[in-house]
């Protein structure tokens, strides 16, 4: 579990910085399109790949940071123990099976995409397979975090 936790933490730390190149790529589309009149589609597609990878990790980062939107109006009165049980049960009965099924369903399509090094359908730029890989990564990280929350829950927010 400790190794799994470290792996997920490393993915979260590594992905956090992607928002800066993403902002740059999406901004630079405008001068590339209006002034240079070239390269904006490439910048857009590269931005798409970065966004997909960023979003894939972000869901688990939100779980680890405990910042998901929730209505705490009644539940804030529950004891920490009861809330811990609810969190553990939801990880085991909801997040884990849903993400495991998504991995199972996405697996063949993702593998095919990797083997073909699938390109973006509109621009034919390379790298579209990374968007499919990102969907797989999203489900894998949710599953890993669900297992961590179910079997090794912690009280304090993690980085």
């Amino acid at each position, binding site marked *: 579990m400790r190794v799994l936790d470290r792996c997920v933490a490393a993915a979260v730390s590594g992905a956090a910085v992607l928002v800066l190149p993403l*902002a740059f790529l999406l901004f630079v589309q405008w001068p590339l399109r209006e002034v240079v009149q070239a390269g904006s589609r490439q910048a857009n597609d590269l931005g798409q790949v970065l966004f997909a990878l960023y*979003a894939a990790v972000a869901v688990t980062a939100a779980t680890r940071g405990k910042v998901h939107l929730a209505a705490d*109006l009644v539940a804030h009165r529950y004891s920490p123990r009861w809330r811990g049980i609810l969190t553990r049960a939801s990880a085991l009965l909801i997040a884990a099976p*849903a993400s495991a099924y998504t991995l199972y369903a996405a697996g063949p399509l993702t593998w095919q995409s990797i083997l073909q090094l699938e390109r973006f359908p509109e621009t034919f730029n390379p790298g579209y397979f990374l968007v499919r890989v990102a969907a797989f990564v999203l489900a894998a990280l949710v599953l890993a975090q669900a297992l961590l929350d179910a079997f090794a829950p912690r009280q304090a927010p993690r980085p």
Partner: protein
Amino acid sequence: METGGLWMLAAVGLAMLATGLPAWIVLVGVSLAFTAGGIAAGALDASLFAAIPGRIVGLLENDLLQALPLYVLMGVLINRTPLADTLFRAARAALRSTGRAVPLAGIALAVLLAPMSGSVGASVAMLSRTLHPRLAAEGMAEERNVALVCVASTLGVVVPPSLVLILLGDAMMRAHTEASHTGAFAGRILNTQDVFHAALVPAAVFLLLCIAITAWQSRRTPREERATPPARVEWITAIAAAALIVGLLAGVALGYLYAVEAAAAGGLALAIHALATGALRGGVLGTVLRETLALSGSLFALLVAATVFTLVQRAFGTDRWLAGVFASTGSAAAALGTGLATIALCALVLDAFEMIFVVVPLVAPALLARVPDAPWVAVLVLLILQASFVIPPFGYAVMMARSRIGSAVGTRALARALLPFVAAQLAVLALVAAFPAMLWRDPAPAATDAPAKGDEDALRRMLEQRDEEQAPEK
């Protein structure tokens, strides 16, 4: 079984309140439970979830959603740098002659920064830090203080290109596309730019009403203390920031910039300013990046869960049932009233993002098949969402402000303080409902009525289209 989707909505509301679990987990959990029940009852096919990976890929390759982390980045940077304070001090100094400089400067700050920070949560955090303590120091009653923070935080919702407006524009565009398959109207499909334009006039009217209410409410506030005037460098920073923000907003509103590009420009400009002024030293940059990732994830998780939830709702045929209800409603006005009332009821328990991702995709296509004036419907939905933020005790801005400020102000007192603002929101809503011509529209109409097709025929086409879309990806 066709009403299964409505029971799912009720179950989500109850489970969210009862468990306090994250909304996305509740949405997925309710979807799993109802799918299991549907399969057991023979109403659903077990292969239903095979469509989920394709739907997630669809979210990851959505151009518009790229703006999401950029807006969050701007919100986090504004909260972690002194820019909001500088703008506030400059606005306060500029408005000193009014005698109500602090509350009006708060509104000015909200109007400038809320569309850039994108989310109501980020605006509440910013205004709780910059505006609330200053209003308290001026002697404003606590309930009015919290009410002003709540209302000012929602101004960004209607001022383009806010995150809520972008996401609603996208949801309405999808709904309009779906409704267009019915053949109930002819003309081009609504785009996010149409929604931005249409929202401008109602936003301006509501802003003016807010300024008038705030000025009137502040008439008995004790005299303001003399604050130290901003230094020259602060004036320059404030004017440059205001010019950049107004320029970006105008660029998007007039169609020179895509919303994503404007968000990227704003995020980069803020990051460069923060780096240049040393505001990101000492580990602040790392904190900003981690917060941005986590907050973006909270919104993206909701999107993923909503796409699972709406898939199951449609598998039950709730969209068919709802479309039938709207088609059998006597007049278009009655259909509009029913649709908006449904959205308003849901908005009392769900926040704007949940509404946009879960309720709008279910209700809007059927509604637009009967009322094809999509920009008008979008603005009415937007105004209802904005009002839902400030209706206590569940309003998202109300819950966030109370939690951020840690104020002990009672729900009844806060409701009284919010009443004039809610009344102003309802007045704008009624005005827009009564006078659709007041909206700014593009010369080419988004869609026009085409009564050539009967309602029943239109309904049949919509259902056929949805059946095709529901088929799992091969």
